[in-house]
């Protein structure tokens, strides 16, 4: 991210030096004030959703979801350890509810528990990264919130397409990881 940001800043400033040098500071401060406005909007969205999610958690609904997911996780991730299964289940269910910030600490714990010290990413680790990248979205909470603030007439109408796309890409991800893993194994035996 460091190099990435540096590149963006440098390139645009060098161009602006020739085109419009006075715009640099005005634009930077303008953008920062835009960031402040967005943060306030996000704060309102998070207040509502973090409250609701706490309810989901306290009512035991998130544990129930995790329990439902466990048999599937056993098959997809090929892990036998129950603790790892539970961590993965909680990570995925947090992702499903569109709270990426809640899923991150769980993902870190799961990967740490799967680490065998070999320095290489194992099959189940790769699967977790891929599933996190494509994660099935039941409720894209923050996005719905942003659409509401932007004055959408039906902010929730993106739920269905998002769900369809994420189901397809998640299946594709699972298939690809299994497929590449099988190919690698065959190579080893030959």
């Amino acid at each position, binding site marked *: 991210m460091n190099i990435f940001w540096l590149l963006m800043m440098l390139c645009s400033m060098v161009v602006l030096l020739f085109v419009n040098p006075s715009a640099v500071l005005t634009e930077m401060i303008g953008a920062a004030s835009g960031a402040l406005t967005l943060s306030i909007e996000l704060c309102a969205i998070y207040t509502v959703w973090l409250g609701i999610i706490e309810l989901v958690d*306290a009512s035991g609904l998130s544990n129930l979801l995790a329990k439902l997911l466990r048999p599937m996780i056993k098959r997809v991730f090929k892990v036998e350890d129950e603790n790892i299964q539970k961590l993965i289940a909680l990570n995925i269910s947090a992702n499903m509810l569109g709270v990426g910030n809640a899923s991150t600490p769980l993902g870190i714990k799961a990967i740490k528990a799967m680490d065998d010290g070999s320095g290489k990413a194992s099959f189940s680790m790769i699967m977790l990264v891929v599933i996190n*990248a494509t994660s099935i979205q039941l409720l894209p909470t923050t996005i719905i919130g942003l659409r509401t603030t932007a004055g959408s007439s039906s902010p929730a109408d993106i739920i269905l397409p998002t769900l369809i796309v994420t189901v397809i890409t998640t299946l594709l991800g699972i298939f690809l990881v299994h497929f590449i893993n099988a190919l690698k194994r065959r190579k080893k035996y030959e």
Partner: protein
Amino acid sequence: MSNYILPIIFILLFIFCIFKKVNVYDTFIKGAKGAIKLVVDIFPFIAAIMIAVALLRVSGITTWLTRLCAPVFNFLGVPAELCELVFLRPFTGSGSYAILENILSTYGADSYISRCACVIMGCSETIFYVATIYFSQTKVKKLAYAIPVALLCSVVGTILACLLCKVI
């Protein structure tokens, strides 16, 4: 139809909480408390990316880049206006929310472009960030085929999202 989804889920959740004897008020407060801290934490990230994007825009680099990518995007059925979002999404979560908000206010929340952007946001993830953070507590250096597979799935998701938004 989808306008009913959220209220129904909320009602079911509250009824479920009554059954489980959860102190609804206190629990909600406890969760909501985290919001300000979270926003304070992510604000500098949002500001940094918005500053960079604003500079890219006034300098004309964005227009130039969009024009350059337009043929590829058009071929895949993705509106070229989403160029910025698609490229920044794998790197920054809060930053891509900033871009999404920009798209929503520029093109209107219910426009085709905005809906595509929302679905793309929902079906993709900050792959590079997640991979770095997840493995930060281990000694794993080689992620093998994790990143390429994740990126490929995101590209497929982006194309599918734009296709579906035309139909639904």
